[in-house]
């Protein structure tokens, strides 16, 4: 079996999509396949939300008043900060400053863990208030969206840990850091999804 990576492009996309003509692809193509798949998945959730809200306006008007806005805001601020930290990690690896890059990655990981902690507390608080997935149409959508997002933050946090390990082993430098950049893209995507989820489930009534 030929295990050599392909040297020439596959030629399945129009030449106008090539990096030479359309611009640089941050990270690498596989992570963008993943990101676009995730965006499709969340897109389906958002469409489901709007259909459910149209059909059950009462449940979606009362729902956001029942959940903890404080937990929602806190998690939004945490994820925005984590996006800032991972962007700073990218800046520092380009300067070949691995120490600072690692420090920013640890801050990103801390934000991810904090998010998971706040979300777990929120789920527990909901449980104590008697809210279940079947409490109302709002809560069905709420749990479906937020728990799914929770899982994404969970495995992305594990990926941050892996990237820190690789950074310490000298895998990334100012010249070659596509793996780190791929993770940064994925992490920003998770943040973007929360930016959309937050107003839908916590702000709009």
């Amino acid at each position, binding site marked *: 079996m030929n295990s050599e990576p392909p040297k020439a492009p596959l030629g399945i996309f129009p030449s106008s999509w090539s990096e030479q003509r359309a*611009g640089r692809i*941050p990270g690498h193509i596989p992570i963008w396949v993943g990101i676009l798949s995730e965006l499709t998945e969340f*897109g389906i959730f958002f469409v489901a939300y709007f259909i459910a809200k149209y059909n059950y306006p009462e449940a979606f008007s009362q729902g956001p008043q029942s959940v903890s806005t404080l937990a*929602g*805001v806190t998690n939004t601020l945490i994820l925005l*900060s984590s996006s*800032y930290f991972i962007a700073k990690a990218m800046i520092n690896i380009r300067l070949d400053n691995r120490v600072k890059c690692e420090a920013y990655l640890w801050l990103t990981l801390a934000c991810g863990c904090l998010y998971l902690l706040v979300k777990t507390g929120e789920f527990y608080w909901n449980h104590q208030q008697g809210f279940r997935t079947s409490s109302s149409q709002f809560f069905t959508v709420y749990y479906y969206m937020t728990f799914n997002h929770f899982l994404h933050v969970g495995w992305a946090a594990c990926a941050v840990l892996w990237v820190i390990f690789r950074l310490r082993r000298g895998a990334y430098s100012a010249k070659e850091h596509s793996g780190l950049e791929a993770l940064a893209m994925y992490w920003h995507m998770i943040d973007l999804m929360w930016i959309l989820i*937050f*107003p839908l489930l916590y702000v709009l*009534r």
Partner: protein
Amino acid sequence: MKPFGKMEYCWWTLIGITLFNTFLGEQFSSSALVSILVALTVMFKGLMIIDHFMELRHAHRYLRLMMRAYLIFFPSLIIVTTFL
């Protein structure tokens, strides 16, 4: 090193918009104006992250277009559903 560069400006702007959105949601009952304001600020936040944190502003044209279209389309549905 600049103590307060473009990245820091973006970070604090995003935090400010988040707090403003929450204030709108908490202080005012749901109205078309609040929904439109929230939708527009969500769009702005998304585009800021795409351009400045993801750095897609100077990257692949079609990835940038896809990401921007996504972050314009879904918040627009908030405005559309307000008038249904």
